[in-house]
């Protein structure tokens, strides 16, 4: 067995398509079957396998369908890590183009999910390493005309409700957290993002980052301690 073989279960439900499909099936039947989620996961995996094989034969439509299964999670990760829509789009574009060009070498030794995340995290790590440390507290993005705007203003959030004061506090908190995240090392930040915001198991995080679960655990511990230090006055 080769060293890079990995068997990973899909632990997160961030793929919008599968979620809505499952919800729909549950809604129609009107009962809750505990095995259904597992079965839906297996169906999706089979579905992906067919799409990957088709894409490997040069079927672009199949690849685009595959992209739609994963791209929202990819974009979310890229948006979190780069902090700007423009950079997130670049990472998205580079990641899927790389995946398209190299899908022929995908040998089903790990899930496509892990494979694409590996590509995205590598691109994001490069981005984080190259980027100068931001001075601003709030994540600032540039729009099409080059004007800057606060990315937090673009965040759709149903929890804010009709309480502007609480909304403002949450935005300030978001800005402080973003500032604290900027101070982590790229690798600490990546482990924290994948665990905290994407809910991945540390075993999966380790496999994505080509490291051990134990190292991922230590990195998460370090990242959390640093963040707690940075945000000590917020509690």
């Amino acid at each position, binding site marked *: 067995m080769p060293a890079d073989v990995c068997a990973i279960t899909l632990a997160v439900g961030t793929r919008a398509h599968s979620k809505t499909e499952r919800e729909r099936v549950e809604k129609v039947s009107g009962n809750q079957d505990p095995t259904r989620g597992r079965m839906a996961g297996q169906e999706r995996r089979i579905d992906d396998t067919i799409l990957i094989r088709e894409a490997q034969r*040069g079927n672009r439509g199949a690849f685009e369908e595959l*992209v739609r299964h994963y791209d929202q999670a990819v974009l979310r990760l890229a948006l979190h890590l780069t902090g700007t829509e423009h950079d997130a789009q670049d990472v998205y574009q580079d990641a899927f183009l790389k995946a398209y060009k190299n899908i022929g070498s995908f040998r089903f030794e790990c899930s496509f999910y892990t494979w694409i995340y590996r590509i995205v995290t590598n691109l994001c790590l490069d981005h984080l390493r190259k980027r100068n440390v931001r001075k601003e507290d709030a994540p600032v993005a540039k729009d099409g005309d080059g004007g800057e705007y606060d990315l937090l203003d673009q965040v759709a959030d149903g929890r804010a409700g009709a309480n502007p004061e609480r909304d403002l506090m949450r935005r300030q908190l978001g800005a402080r957290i973003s500032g604290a995240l900027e101070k982590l090392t790229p690798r600490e930040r990546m482990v924290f993002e994948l665990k905290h915001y994407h809910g991945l198991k540390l075993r999966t995080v380790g496999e994505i980052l080509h490291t051990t679960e134990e190292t991922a655990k230590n990195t998460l511990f370090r990242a959390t301690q640093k963040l707690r230090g940075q945000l000590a006055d917020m509690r």
Partner: protein
Amino acid sequence: MKCEWVRENITLQVYGELADDARHELEQHVARCADCAAELKATEEFHELLSKAPEFTPSPNLVAASRMRLQEALETAEQGGFFRRLAFDPANWLRQVRFSPALASAILILGFAGGVGTAYKVLDHPPSGTAAVATPAPTEASITGIRSITQEPGTNQIEIKYDTVSTLQTQGSLNDQRIQELLLFAARNNYNSGVRMDSVDLLTQEPNVSAVRDALIYALRYDTNPGVRLKSLDGLGSFVKSDVHVRDAVLEALVNDSNPGVRTEALRLIEPAKADGSVRGVLMTLAAKDQSQYIKSQARTMLAQLPEID
């Protein structure tokens, strides 16, 4: 030492990453140690604080723009195909052969048999000058598996049974059973919603066949594409009154479908059967508390047209 271990593992506990035995040990310790209990509480509070911040979620516009940009780039992108790698990356080729011993043996045997067979034929008919046209060897990518390899005793003839994947084409009328079977397969299994739409569209022309009706009901219930669901509704419409399964499926779509267009169409189709008890029950529920004002008012109108039940 114990406290140190606990503090290192509290983060993992908060993230649900601790093994069962370690979790038990940690919980036991925290119950006895006030300092560690305070640390656990502080970590949990910090975790909660982080989750209070707004999350960056890509807007639908950003997703759509990214997809369009990618599609444009894919138009010109070249894929590193299998044959290219076969030609330019011998290490990778060897690696594949290593992982596919059955395939490797099959290719070896095919090559050997092909060589022996050609030589035999050339020797057998030297003057004729017509070379035997061998069946083109299947490409490796098209072979999905080797079923069996047998050698005829005492000869050098080898028989290999293998499965291939290839694009085939068939033609026929809608009454043709083979065509119907393929349409039914496409309606249920194809990942391309355009193909599902086409097959459901054609199947609606033959709704009297029970398998077709089942496929349309399946599409109405489970297809992810609202267009396909709407198309299957059209095909089922005329059976709402006579077929109770169709009626149930249309009622389910009326109550549960996520698409307002599908629900509106279902409501229109159910009208001929509005006197039915189950339909009346659904209409009463919709008239009382449906989120859509249109559905609510239509259901009320339909109920008002029905005679009162004593």
